[in-house]
Each structure stands twice: as structure tokens, then as C-alpha cells.
């Protein structure tokens, strides 16, 4: 037994360290290159709060609600002419349709690319809904989105329906083009909860992540 222990300590440290180092390097490189990778730093939280319109809106009824869209990581989504700042966002380096083909899931709802969603989000009437499970939302999400996992229990769906009027324009996304959860949630909210204005962002979080990477690359030049 002492012989075995001495073998462990004599032989192992260098290869062990080398394996760990190689894994670190590969992990960092792979995750930075992949649109669905995990980044080392979490985006800053609650940077800007965009309040709903102060005047009463008969269509949405937001005036009497305490709805606020919290824009996590807002420094990354600043666009000229908006309240968020004056940083230029370099979009369109890769056409959205080329980078993110239409959803692999058949859908009756209108599909939007991230630049279109970004434009719509300038209006606080539009509500961005994250259909992924809660842990993914907590990890990272598109700024301003609210979480409503497609597999939410009825009580949560009912609470959502009570909070947001049926005419609220909803834009729903999930992980990527292969993810069916946005479509499932859209179906559910449309058929069982009476929402009439639903759009999907089929590219999902992956499309947003790529757009962010391009924006950061463009901003860094």
C-alpha cells in the first residue's frame, strides 16, 4: 500500500496539472466560440429600468400595473436614439436568416429575427417571454424578458394571464431553432388563455447571443 501511494505522488502531479490546464484552455476557447456556450462573467444585473407608460393605456391597462421591465446587462443592448445610451450596435454582420434558419418546429405564429425583436422592445407594450426552464433564465436571458417556462404549472400560467392582458403583444423565445418550447408555450397561451397577439423568435437565445458577440466585436474595433 505505501508503494502504491508513493507511485501516485511520484507519477501523477504533472500529467494531472496538464490535463486540468488543457481542459481549462479548451473550455474557455469552446465556450467563447459557441453561441450556446457559457461565458465566464455574468452580465451586470438591473442596470436600467424602463418603466411602462405613465398614461393610461386602454389596450394594455399597464397604467395600473406595477410592471417594470428590468434590463439586465443593458450596456450590451444600447442603441442610438434610445433611452439606453448611445453605443453603436453592429448588427447584420451575419444576416439573421442565414445564421438562424426558420424554426425547425412548424408554427402558425409570425417569426421574428432578433433585430426586429430589438426594435419592437423599444415599445414597452411588447412583452418578451422566455419559455425555457427557470434555471436557464436565471443563468442568462435576454434583457427585459420575463420567465414563463413552457412546462409551467397551471397556477403560474393563470397568474401570468391575470397579470398581462390578453391583448398584450407577446414575443416568445427559447434556446435555439431546434427548441420546441417557445412554440408549445405560444400554442398554450393562444388556445387556452386567449392571447391573440403572439410572435415567436425562432433563433432564440442563441441568436441573441451571436448578435451580442457581433455587437461586442464591432464595438471593440
Amino acid at each position: 500500500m505505501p508503494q502504491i501511494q508513493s507511485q501516485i505522488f511520484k507519477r501523477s502531479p504533472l500529467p494531472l496539472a496538464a490535463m486540468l490546464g488543457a481542459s481549462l484552455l479548451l473550455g474557455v476557447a469552446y465556450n467563447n466560440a459557441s453561441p450556446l456556450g457559457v461565458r465566464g462573467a455574468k452580465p451586470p444585473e438591473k442596470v436600467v429600468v424602463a418603466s411602462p407608460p405613465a398614461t393610461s393605456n386602454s389596450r394594455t391597462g399597464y397604467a395600473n400595473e406595477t410592471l417594470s421591465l428590468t434590463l439586465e446587462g443593458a450596456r450590451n443592448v444600447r442603441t442610438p436614439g434610445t433611452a439606453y445610451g448611445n453605443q453603436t450596435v453592429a448588427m447584420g454582420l451575419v444576416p439573421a436568416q442565414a445564421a438562424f434558419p426558420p424554426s425547425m418546429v412548424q408554427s402558425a405564429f409570425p417569426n421574428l429575427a432578433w433585430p426586429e425583436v430589438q426594435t419592437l422592445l423599444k415599445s414597452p407594450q411588447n412583452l418578451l417571454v422566455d419559455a425555457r426552464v427557470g434555471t436557464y433564465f436565471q443563468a442568462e436571458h435576454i434583457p427585459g424578458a420575463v420567465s414563463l417556462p413552457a412546462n409551467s404549472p397551471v397556477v403560474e400560467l393563470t397568474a401570468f394571464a391575470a397579470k398581462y392582458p390578453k391583448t398584450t403583444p407577446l414575443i416568445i423565445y427559447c434556446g435555439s431553432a431546434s427548441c420546441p418550447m417557445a412554440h408549445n408555450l405560444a400554442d398554450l397561451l393562444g388556445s387556452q388563455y386567449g392571447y391573440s397577439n403572439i410572435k415567436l423568435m425562432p433563433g432564440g437565445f442563441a441568436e441573441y447571443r451571436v448578435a451580442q458577440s457581433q455587437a461586442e466585436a464591432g464595438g471593440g474595433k
Partner: protein
Amino acid sequence: MKVTLEINFKLVLRWFLGLLLIWASISKLANVQDFYGSLLAYKLPLPDFFLRGTAMCLPWLELLCGLMLLAKVQIQAALTWAIILFSIFVLATGAAWGRGLDISCGCLDLSLLGLGSESELVKVMKSVSFAFFRALLLTVGAVYLFRQETKAAIAKVG
């Protein structure tokens, strides 16, 4: 005859552990965010940057271990890491099970075997209690293989 059986058993065990580690790593690398979400679900008292670092690096460490076990390169180092990883899985799944967390262990992608996510078999195989016993068994297997390999190395030298 006994020697042949033992050698074959060691070979089979090494290949089994190697392939399992490669499978586990590919499952995680296919969607690292899923794996990161699984790590968050364990509700471990660890800082976020540590969990992110784990999600980024652990699949690659598993892949390296698996490939080195199959290729029989630096096998003691690969087995040492395998024992460390399996022991961490035992602790994490045991803690989650003990706290009654109803989570998927995030270890292996069973859809690669063509198993639907709704079947009872998949539910059992994805459960945290099953993951705990599986990790425990794998740790025992890796320790056994490590001891055998070390003995063989000592015999070769001395």
C-alpha cells in the same frame, strides 16, 4: 486462465469507463448551457463563477480522461481524475438526494440511445438517486482499476 480473465476484465472496465466518460462529455458539450442549468439546479453553496468554470471545463476534462483511458496513455493520471470526478458526483448527487431535490442529474444524454424523455426507464435513469448509485459504482470501478494499474506499474519497475 485466471490471469486471462483478470486482464480481460480490466480491459473491459477500462474501455467501459473510457466510453462512459466520452459519452458524458459529449452530452454536456452538445449544450453547455443545459449542463450549467443542471449545476444551478443542485443549489450548491458555491459562487457563480466557480459553477460557470465547472460547466466550461469539466466536459473537456471528462473527454480527455475518456480518450486517455481508451488509448492507455497516462492511465494513472486519467484514472486519478476519473476518481476525483466520480467522487464529486457522488457528493453532489448524494447531497441533492438528501435534500430531496427533484432534479435531473445532467450527467448523460439518454436521447443518444434513442430513449424518449417521457418513458419510465428514462425517468428512473435520470433521477438523482440513480445517479448517486451509478457514481458510487463508477468510483469503486475506477479505484479498483487504479490499484490494478499501479500494482502492474510497480511490478514492471521492480
